[in-house]
């Protein structure tokens, strides 16, 4: 197990370097000279040259990339072009909000998704199964930004029982978390159902039934445990989609998290901020994936046997 964790950690390093590489080189696609952009319109040639010198833009690209990596290793994500503040400071202020939103959403994804999946799998091809799976299919197809607006209209405008926007209390969390978690819940529900159905057809479940165990015990103790193993991977992957989804949900509900920061930065052409935000979110995703893999390995003895 320890060897697996070490091997997995070692495998993560090139991915992280690759992510920094992609982010760095995407920013090289920006049309025009960054020094000219930074200096603003009407700046003199000397000013532009000074900026180029100061930021090292006149050096070869690979040197710039190496410097960028070194800076990242020292926690230097660059400086915002708009307020000259370190990007990392802004990220660290926004991050807890986004993580909070992501955690509540993943909770909804897990509870709603697995619950619905189990309800479906217990009586396959029944009305309740068809109904739940239909709702799940619709859930996958709804655009989160529209679903969020409709929830806002219904609960905040019509019923007036939940706040429209902001991030001040637990009540503020409900609608954004539901908006963000619903799509993932639908995917997890489908996965749980098919995984449960696979397990329920196994011989050891038939044996458990033959022994005369109660159905409830068979489902929850014997089937569910094994059925949940592949679901864990899906939940891990959903976390990535969820982190990406915060961009939309935070914009809808005016939440000052990492996602909204990135969108605002794109609008204001604050490239170091975009770069830092995307990189940081990706690093979180890579680390979450690492945990999911280790978790999966820990629970799935079959892999070890193979």
């Amino acid at each position, binding site marked *: 197990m320890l060897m697996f964790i070490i091997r997995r950690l070692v495998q993560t390093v090139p991915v992280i370097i690759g992510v920094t590489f992609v982010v760095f080189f*995407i920013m090289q696609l920006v049309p025009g000279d960054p020094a000219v952009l930074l200096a603003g319109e009407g700046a003199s040639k000397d000013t532009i040259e000074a900026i180029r010198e100061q930021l090292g833009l006149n050096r070869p690209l690979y040197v710039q990339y190496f410097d960028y990596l070194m800076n990242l290793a020292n926690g230097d994500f660059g400086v915002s072009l708009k307020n000259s503040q370190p990007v990392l400071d802004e990220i660290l202020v926004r991050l807890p909000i986004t993580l909070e939103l992501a955690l509540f959403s993943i909770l909804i994804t897990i509870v709603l998704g697995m619950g619905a999946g189990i309800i479906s799998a217990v009586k396959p091809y029944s009305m309740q199964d068809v109904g739940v799976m239909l709702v799940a299919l619709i859930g996958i197809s709804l655009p989160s930004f529209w679903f969020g607006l409709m929830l806002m209209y219904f609960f905040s405008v019509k019923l007036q029982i939940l706040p429209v926007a902001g991030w001040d209390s637990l009540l503020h969390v409900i609608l954004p978390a539901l908006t963000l978690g619903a799509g993932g819940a639908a995917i997890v529900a489908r996965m749980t159902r098919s995984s449960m159905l696979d397990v329920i057809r196994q011989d050891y479940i038939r044996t458990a039934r033959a022994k005369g165990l109660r159905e409830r015990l068979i489902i929850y103790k014997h089937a569910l445990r094994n059925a949940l193993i592949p679901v864990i991977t899906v939940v891990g992957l959903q976390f990535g989609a969820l982190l*990406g989804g915060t*961009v939309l949900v935070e914009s809808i509900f005016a939440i000052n998290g990492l996602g909204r920061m990135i969108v605002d930065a794109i609008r204001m052409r604050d490239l170091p901020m975009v770069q830092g935000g995307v990189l940081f979110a990706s690093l979180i995703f890579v680390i979450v994936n690492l945990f999911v893999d280790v978790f999966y390995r820990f629970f799935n003895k079959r892999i070890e046997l193979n």
Partner: protein
Amino acid sequence: MSLEVKTEQPIVVPQSIIQPKESRLRDFLSIMMVNKAAMVGAIIILFYIFIAIFAPILAPYDPYEIQLENKLMPPSFEHWMGTDDKGRDILSRILYGSRLSMGVGFAAVAFGAFFGIIFGLVAGYYGKWVDSIIMRIMDVMLAFPGILLALAIISALGPSLINVTIAVGAFSVPLFARIVRGSTLEVKRLEYIDAIRSLGANDFTIIFKHIFPNILSPIIVQGTLRLATAILSAAGLSFLGLGAQPPSPEWGTMLSNGRDFLFSAPYIALFPGMAISILVLGFNIFGDGLRDAFDPRMKK
């Protein structure tokens, strides 16, 4: 190159690969006919394609024409879906918008599929270090959560519908590459590939003439399901103001406009959202049906 049949390991050959084309098509059609849900999906998609083609004939009004005296009118016989804050007919805008939203989705998936298929074929066929390098690059692309890679690309290229297409397409490349690589690995072990190679066919011919046509099924399934995601992502980016720009009747842009009138005129946001949801639902149902139809295990 020897034509020896290796018998140490049993080669699992998916039925879909060794079946002749006609019978595969017949099987597929018969399963699709039975799979009512997939038929519903197909009908929805065809309906939208019909709308996109005939929008100029179907639309009762000019989608761009501003008529301030008609602004914010709720749904009525004159304006079935009401009018927006500039008095434009929402139904007409949605009908025209189908061209943009579907166009971006198709273009993005075509872009992603093109590069993904090439990378997947090359990685799967050549294996070894070529495979390692290509697939590690794909892993890196998959390390970006959700639409963040697309956001990074748009931040560099600037907001526009074309850049959204490129960004969403780039995001699909690794998904196609993975699937194509897996299928290529499976097919290249088959005897007929050895036979073709011994007849003197070069790698290009083997890859594109003999392997590619036999791995189309998973590509089509993935493509259909990716269309659903691509349409959602592109509309989402336009919703954020990073794609199509007003006064474009792109659905995400219309929804974004509707957000400002959620209190007074919720129907402005309601209908474009419904248009997206139903189309995406169609692709998802159809994709699910295709997967079942192409899956040999589903055949009894």
